[in-house]
């Protein structure tokens, strides 16, 4: 079980741009998906015979379908602005983890087969043939990108490396080279309804246990309902919220918010997962199939609103694509946005003074906040410019007395990825995950040293799990990562009932 030994990066006061080490992490590649996981998703079980042609056909399809992909592949001016922006480059020192290096893996093949100069003068324009070695490089380095889009913030041309990674993964899946972690998980959602494969009876049992715990703790009968028809709100949350710590403390908090506000709500065993890994593998078909479960559950349970729990890329898919993937949602209450983030719900209730807090309940903590990449760079909250940054912070400030932000160049739209996003939260990539967490850990260390920060709050299941590991690895205590709604749940005054 032990992870293979690798050199541990040193935490420095400021993140330093490392000296290049060619192929420093070319040995990293996640386990490949087996035939059973591939076929569930509609992909070949192993590398197909004519894979070169099939891969180029697929690339041609994607170039036609997504104009953005062609623009991204054509428009890089090799200016270098992105080179020191990727947490994986900063942690691994491997130049193929510079965003431009990663893009070039696909770009050089694109040039060879899809541009005139590349067809006739490949050497002059950096165009290369698609070979097995190139495919192996793709598999390795397109699984060293967490699709966090930090590089895109700094690119003067607006190139989004995440979309290039997604396209590369889709091309590979289509020729039978898939990643085990993502594809096994997507298959479980298609079959059972969530990433964990948590069947309905286990979910019901887990929620009952939570109700007991909350009664024991607060003497208030907060419910965590499952499949309750005609509820006002369907809450769709990552299944990690049922299963793991500190995620479950967030779920307890959501329940307390709904209870105190008198909002009837339910979870669904059919749509028991907010996460949509279809995005990670660039598969519109799978992303749509996963999103449709939420629509089906909302119709079946006859709810008026859909609210998403703390899950980073779920919110990206929900905020940006849910309506086109699974809409129209004309059967929901038009008074509320579709969908809504749990932070928006809590924030609104705070503004209306429906929720009140005893901030001293969180006085044992000095808190900082980690902006999760997909929330920060691909979404919004509350219809306020920058609401995805201000609303979570305002909630923390409303529920606790001690809050300090990390350094400006590491938060908000410039936030560093936790190191485990984009389908990389798997043990076979532990070296990459720990090295990729370096910039965030350095920024955290500074607020720990300067302000005595004790806890970091987040609103993403992947971030929470990744930090539970990374904190321990870098010498912090693993339970210093918390759910934002844990703070809400701790401080919420629960005696008032009327709206």
């Amino acid at each position, binding site marked *: 079980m032990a992870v293979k030994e690798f050199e541990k990066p040193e935490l420095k006061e400021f993140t330093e741009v490392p000296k290049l080490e060619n192929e420093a992490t070319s040995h990293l590649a996640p386990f490949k998906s087996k035939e059973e996981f591939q076929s569930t998703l509609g992909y070949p079980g192993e590398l197909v015979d004519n894979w070169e042609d099939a891969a180029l056909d697929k690339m041609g399809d994607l170039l036609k379908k997504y104009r953005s992909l062609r623009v991204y592949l054509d428009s890089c001016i090799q200016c270098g602005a992105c080179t020191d922006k990727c947490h994986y480059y900063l942690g691994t020192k491997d130049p193929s983890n510079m965003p431009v290096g990663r893009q070039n893996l696909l770009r050089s093949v694109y040039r060879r087969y899809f541009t005139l100069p590349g067809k006739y003068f490949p050497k002059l324009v950096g165009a290369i043939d698609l070979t097995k070695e190139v495919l192996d490089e793709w598999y390795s380095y397109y699984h060293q990108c967490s699709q966090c889009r930090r590089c895109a913030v700094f690119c003067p041309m607006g190139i989004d490396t995440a979309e290039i990674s997604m396209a590369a993964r889709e091309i590979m899946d289509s020729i039978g080279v898939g990643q*085990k972690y993502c594809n096994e998980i997507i298959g*479980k959602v298609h079959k059972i309804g969530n*990433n964990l494969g948590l069947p309905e009876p286990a979910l019901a049992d*887990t929620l009952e246990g939570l109700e007991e715990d909350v009664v024991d703790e607060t003497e208030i009968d907060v419910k965590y309902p499952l499949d309750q028809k005609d509820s006002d709100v369907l809450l769709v949350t990552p299944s990690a919220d049922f*299963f*793991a*710590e500190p995620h479950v403390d967030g779920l307890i908090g959501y329940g307390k918010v709904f209870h105190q506000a008198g909002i009837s709500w339910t979870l669904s065993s059919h749509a028991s997962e907010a996460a949509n890994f279809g995005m990670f593998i660039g598969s519109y078909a799978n992303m749509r199939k996963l999103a449709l479960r939420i629509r089906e559950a909302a119709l079946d349970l006859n709810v008026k609103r859909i609210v998403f729990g703390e899950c980073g890329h779920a919110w990206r898919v929900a905020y940006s694509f849910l309506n086109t993937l699974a809409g129209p949602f004309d059967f929901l209450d038009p008074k509320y946005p579709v969908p809504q983030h749990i932070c928006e719900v809590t924030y609104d209730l705070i503004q209306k003074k429906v929720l009140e807090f005893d901030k001293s309940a969180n006085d044992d903590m000095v808190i900082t906040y980690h902006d999760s990449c997909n929330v920060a760079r691909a979404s919004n909250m509350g219809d306020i410019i920058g609401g995805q940054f201000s609303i979570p912070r305002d909630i923390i400030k409303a529920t606790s007395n001690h809050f300090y932000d990390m350094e400006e160049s590491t938060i908000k739209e410039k936030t560093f990825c936790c190191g485990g996003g984009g389908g990389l939260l798997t043990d076979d990539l532990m070296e990459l995950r720990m090295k990729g967490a370096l910039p965030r850990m350095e920024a955290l260390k500074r607020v720990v040293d300067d302000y005595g920060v004790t806890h970091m709050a987040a609103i993403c*299941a992947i971030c929470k*799990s990744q930090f539970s590991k990374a904190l321990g690895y870098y010498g912090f205590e693993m339970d210093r990562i918390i759910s934002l709604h844990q703070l809400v749940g701790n401080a919420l005054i629960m005696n008032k009932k009327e709206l």
Partner: protein
Amino acid sequence: MPIEVNGKSLEVDEEGYLSNLNDWEKDVAEIMAKEDGIDLGEDHWEIINFLREYYEEYQIAPAVRVLTKAVGKKLGKDKGNSKYLYELFPYGPGKQACKFAGLPKPTGCV
């Protein structure tokens, strides 16, 4: 790479989890634990047995909170927490203990 247990060769996946749940026997846990540098004592077995019982009923490993609560009820409140479980299974109760118990690895954002 299969593992050898009492003269039988048992198939495991890339990460060392048993491929076939029914192949499990007590010595599987002992051998896997030894490989991870852990000597299984009574405390470990309490957890492993609970995991197997829960799995039998629900076809999934218990959530961390379900596990800590059950342990707390049975072994006393001071043991009903993750810290205690991490002392027993340093790589994480969810993953390492599941492996020893012959259960599949929990997947997802955990």
